[in-house]
């Protein structure tokens, strides 16, 4: 509701420029905002998952359960459940109402990352190190794992050619691929998986068949992420390029006819750096990426033209994981050396015209012209009566709740504040 009274200039700031907060709780390795952007989950190097409340910048929940470093985090749609995957080969689904473990799933190998289904918190996809990517479904209280393929779907004409003596060669090429990253599309209908050979496999989440494969690059695909609206997606690969694609029409168009063409390629042509992590801005207009090693920077490109618009510098350390708040102009990033979380936001100065009802902001001096009746002396009763007569006889509606455009209106889970725990005495210095 404060949007109605806010300064329009402040609201139009496209990207954050000022470092406003630094959060220190353990050594953070990965971070994720929930859908509303009011909570940030942070996975620590010792396996603890911490949920920060971004209204107070304090801690809302501390979740202990993993024994090794946290690899990835994924929120459920309503914000009540959090899925964390860790180097201890386990994925844990946490219920944030009380911080309890809703489900624990063990795997036979290390996990690259795990993502929850966008609508159903009981289904998730995990990309594993030595194994095929696995779709895990634990509705009905049983844990069912479905193995998916890393091998790309070959087109028909290619298959016919290779049936002969080249059959062996083809198989060997396929064996060597492993899926490094897998994520659901906006509706959850398909899974986009990226392999170590640069292929994008699109797998139908119901039939579990690969419906389309496209070779995007020759090197590892490290990240695939969708914009908040789902209309575009980014692919970060080891060839130091970030590719931006328009999402094809997934509902109405057949997979075979999808157009997966690069819209923009983002590279650092000067230093030829790798990119640690990528993210979209909240409105999809900007792309963020953090640089590898000594640069300590976050690059921001604009998506329509593809040009670099800003480089944000982090204070002391290399930035690993970068996230843009889905609803505000706010960027959070983790540092590599100390695991500090840095928060950049826009800072707007106080509008002084708000301090009195008749103050107005003007560009230049205005000559004041008195009203005719400026200095008339009116007895109190007459003045009051005149004021009361001026009041509208219009209907006032004090009950109906109207939605304000631009505000996040979906139901989002509020993590209950637990005040009784005496052990949670948090101080804002490092706790090792």
């Amino acid at each position, binding site marked *: *509701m*404060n*949007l*109605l*009274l*806010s300064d329009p200039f402040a609201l139009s700031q496209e990207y954050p420029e000022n470092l406003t907060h630094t959060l220190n709780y353990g050594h953070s390795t990965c971070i994720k905002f929930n859908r509303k952007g009011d909570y940030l989950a942070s996975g620590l190097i010792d396996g603890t998952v911490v949920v920060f*409340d971004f*209204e*107070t910048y*304090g*801690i*809302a929940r501390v979740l202990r359960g993993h024994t090794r470093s946290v690899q990835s985090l994924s929120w459920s749609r309503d914000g009540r459940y959090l899925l964390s995957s860790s180097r201890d080969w386990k994925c844990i689904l946490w219920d944030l109402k009380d911080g309890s473990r809703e489900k624990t799933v063990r795997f036979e190998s290390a996990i690259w990352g795990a993502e929850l289904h966008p609508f159903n918190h009981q289904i998730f996809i995990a990309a594993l190190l030595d194994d095929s990517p696995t779709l895990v479904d634990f509705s009905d209280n049983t844990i069912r794992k479905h193995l998916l393929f890393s091998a790309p779907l070959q087109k028909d004409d290619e298959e016919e050619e290779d049936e002969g003596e080249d059959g062996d060669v083809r198989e060997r090429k396929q064996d060597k691929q492993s899926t490094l990253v897998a994520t659901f599309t906006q509706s959850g209908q398909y899974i986009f998986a990226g392999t170590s050979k640069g292929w994008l496999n699109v797998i139908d989440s119901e039939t579990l068949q690969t419906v389309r494969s496209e070779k995007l690059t020759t090197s590892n695909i490290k990240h695939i992420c969708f914009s908040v609206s789902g209309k575009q997606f980014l692919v970060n690969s080891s060839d130091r390029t970030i590719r931006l694609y328009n999402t094809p029409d997934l509902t109405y168009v057949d997979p075979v006819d999808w157009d997966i063409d690069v819209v923009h390629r983002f590279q650092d042509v000067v230093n030829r750096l790798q990119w640690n992590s990528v993210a979209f801005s909240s409105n999809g207009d900007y792309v963020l990426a953090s640089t590898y090693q000594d640069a300590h920077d976050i690059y921001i490109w604009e998506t329509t033209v593809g040009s670099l618009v800003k480089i944000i510098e982090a204070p002391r350390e290399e930035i690993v994981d970068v996230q843009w708040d889905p609803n505000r102009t706010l960027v959070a990033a983790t540092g590599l050396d100390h695991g500090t979380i840095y928060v950049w936001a826009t800072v*707007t100065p*106080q*509008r002084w015209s*708000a*301090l*009195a*009802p008749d103050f107005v902001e003007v560009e230049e001096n205005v000559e004041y012209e008195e009203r005719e009746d400026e200095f008339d002396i009116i007895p109190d*009763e007459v*003045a*009051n*009566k005149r*004021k*009361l007569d001026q*009041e*509208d006889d*219009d*209907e*006032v*509606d*004090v*009950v*109906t*709740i*109207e939605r304000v455009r631009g*505000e996040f209106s979906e139901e989002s889970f*509020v993590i*209950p*504040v*637990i*005040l*009784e725990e005496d052990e*949670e005495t*948090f101080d804002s210095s490092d706790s090792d």
Partner: protein
Amino acid sequence: MDKMDLDGPVESSGETTDSELPAHYGDSLHDISAPKSSVNGIQVVVATERTDLPKYVLQFVLEGHRAGVTNVKFSADGRWIATSSADKTIKIWHADNGEYESTIEGHGRGINDIAWSPDSNVLASASDDKTVRIWNVMSGRVLRTLRGHTNYAYSVDFNPKGNLIASGSFDESIKIWDVKKGVCLRTLPAHSDPVSAVHFTRDGTMIVSCSHDGQIRLWDTSTGQCLKTLIEDSNSPVSCVRFSPNGKYLLSGSLDSAVRLWDYLKGRCVKTYQGHRNEKFICVPTFSITRGVWVVSGSEDGRIFFWDVQTKEVVQVLDGHKDVVLAVDAHPTKNLLVSAGLDGVVKIWIER
């Protein structure tokens, strides 16, 4: 500590009767308001021709406080009533039968305001001992003591998520506190006179505050910046302000015996409700929206006034308190009203 329960024979004890109400009070109102009408030139008449008037009658009388009761609030889930008093205690009562539940003690001086958390488990209180305390209602234990104000704490409110508390104080500032850590996040240099009330919008993004300097100010919760200021021309101290249930309007009570409804986007007062007397004390006005939309306020002559939000007419007057009625509150879902004042007695009124 004790309570008297009068639900059967209420009508015969002479407190209020609904059948007699309109004509009877219509006449007496003319008499009592005669001196007032010369002050602000308004004739106050109880609307008698309407059929949808509120018909509240006394249901329970809750006694036990040893000094005046400063504020009374229904819990968000509607099961409890909390009352704060100058006798340094908070008492918890059942909302459905008026039964006494417990007393919460710990403040060093009288308590000015209380606020329930959205989950109804936790209560915040602001006191003349300059602290705001957070209590667990069931156990009565103090969970956090928020220190920082340099003078009496006058008013307190939880935000809808329950993780922030705003408090207004005699030291002219508003402090926003982190509930979990119990520390002050921000101090707003709000007014140039004691801050008499603070209230959050239903989405927690704005805080409204009012003060004895006659100003009502709207603040952005996350940045702490002032978004808007409203002043009534007479500059009379504003004793209390709160948002309407949908957050689009502000209801303010000021010490010139008027309750005003403001549209803050337009920046002006759209309705004025008069007929009661309020010149010295903080009489908290509130909305009753469970059946019919009314504005309710206590008055310094011991009565409770109901106005129709649209027409500004007085639609009911309840008599029964012997001294200034300081606070009224409406139940979130049922047609219940609770009132309390300087006489130390709390009364529950029901409309069947």
